[in-house]
């Protein structure tokens, strides 16, 4: 087993908009014996700059990887976007594929890329490093009345050639992690469809339409909650849900949990301790499934 020490890479969107994802992550990882260290001097992962200049994205990303190498620890991300960008850049640098200019820039900033660290997403750390058995030992409260749908997202799965952790057409890691809590996994139509959040600053009509379809598909199978592992997916379905309801004159009322919030409930933390009270869509289901107020 790898030692359970990581640099927490928060990125920009989590501290800006969804700090309850961070709060709940820190709570559950501490309980599981994972040690988190603050990522020093980090910058944006680079992904939002990819459409401006691909080289800029790679360089910003490489700088973060070099900072982590200096600390001698693997990176743990909570955001699919940060994971995708950092993991891809790390792989490209290790293979030295078209990254000569990026390497030179790093040297100019006093960094020396060595290829010594890995980039991992929270669900990979939980499933592979902590392990299902270890997680199970820490769970007190079976959530067996809860009907849970999941949305794994895109940048944690694709492109397969760069990630290759699981089948993007049928991802199972998040489902396995949900099953540990004894919640019922509720399958729904088109589970792997994108949340479409990345273009919402430029066009709302299409992302709203795409998100509406997902929320309708989830409502159709009577799930209590949708679980996500990315701040962008979460914002799309939670923060924007009331606007989507207004746009289509349709009521969904589907509360969206960050995975560590679900896990935390099963560990016996209160909803407040996990920042569940900060969700936009009221998780009414907690009352009758877990007898929480």
């Amino acid at each position: 087993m790898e030692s359970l020490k990581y640099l927490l890479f928060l990125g920009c969107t989590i501290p800006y908009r969804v700090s309850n994802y961070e709060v709940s992550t820190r709570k559950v990882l501490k309980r599981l014996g994972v040690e988190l260290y603050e990522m020093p001097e980090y910058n944006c992962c680079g992904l939002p700059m990819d459409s401006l200049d691909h080289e800029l994205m790679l360089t910003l990303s490489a700088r973060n990887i070099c900072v982590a190498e200096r600390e001698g620890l693997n990176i743990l991300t909570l955001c699919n976007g940060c994971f995708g960008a950092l993991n891809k850049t790390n792989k490209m640098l290790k293979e030295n594929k078209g990254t000569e200019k990026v390497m030179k820039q790093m040297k100019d900033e006093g960094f020396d890329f060595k290829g010594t660290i890995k980039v991992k997403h929270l669900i990979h750390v939980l499933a592979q490093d902590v392990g299902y058995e270890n997680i199970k030992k820490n769970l007190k409260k079976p959530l067996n009345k809860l009907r849970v749908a999941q949305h794994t997202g895109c940048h944690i799965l694709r492109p397969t050639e760069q990630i290759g952790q699981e089948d993007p057409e049928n991802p199972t890691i998040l489902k396995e992690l949900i099953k540990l809590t004894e919640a019922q996994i509720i399958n729904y139509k088109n589970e792997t469809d994108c949340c479409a959040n990345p273009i919402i600053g430029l066009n709302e009509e299409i992302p709203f339409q795409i998100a509406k379809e997902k929320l309708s598909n989830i409502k159709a199978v009577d799930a209590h909650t949708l679980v996500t592992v990315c701040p962008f997916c979460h914002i799309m379905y939670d923060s924007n849900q009331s606007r989507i309801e207004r746009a289509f004159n349709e009521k969904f009322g589907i509360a969206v949990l960050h995975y560590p919030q679900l896990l935390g409930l099963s560990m016996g933390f209160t909803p407040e301790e996990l920042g569940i009270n900060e969700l936009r869509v009221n998780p009414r289901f907690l009352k009758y499934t877990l007898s929480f107020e």
Partner: protein
Amino acid sequence: MKNKTEPKFKYELSKIAGAENIMLCFQCGTCTADCPISRYSEFYRPRRIARLVQLGYKEELLSDNRLWLCTTCFACVDHCPQNVEPASIVRALRNLAIKEKRQIPHVTKELAFTLLKTGYIYRIPELRLKQREQKGLPQLPKTNLSDIANIFKTLGITDVLENTKIFEKVEK
């Protein structure tokens, strides 16, 4: 299509990282069948974009802001039987449109300047920083801003940001 085509455009684009395989597209349309945006946009269809590149419709492509409709779900990259990487072709087209100072989304420009000034793409408000304290979260690290400034300088980003026409919204 009003403008003259530039038949050599495909060679120009294929020199950009990610767009190397544009010539291999044989128009099967798998990308478009699997693209969430293509269901709602007539312009944004990866197969169509690949063909326009092959035929040399440079002006039409680089002046059309609907290139920014791609959500980067990468379904097209995974499913293309020819390894064309349609999403990377679209990225290359966006990069080129900006490099040639034709057009840039206002939001991208704002994020880039905030990144240059703070290391983050958003200016995290004081209230949020205070809330972090109240929640017992550690302070956010400050990045080395001179590194970011050097990176922007080497790549000529600031010049491009200051001298490229912005657009606000994209119609489907």
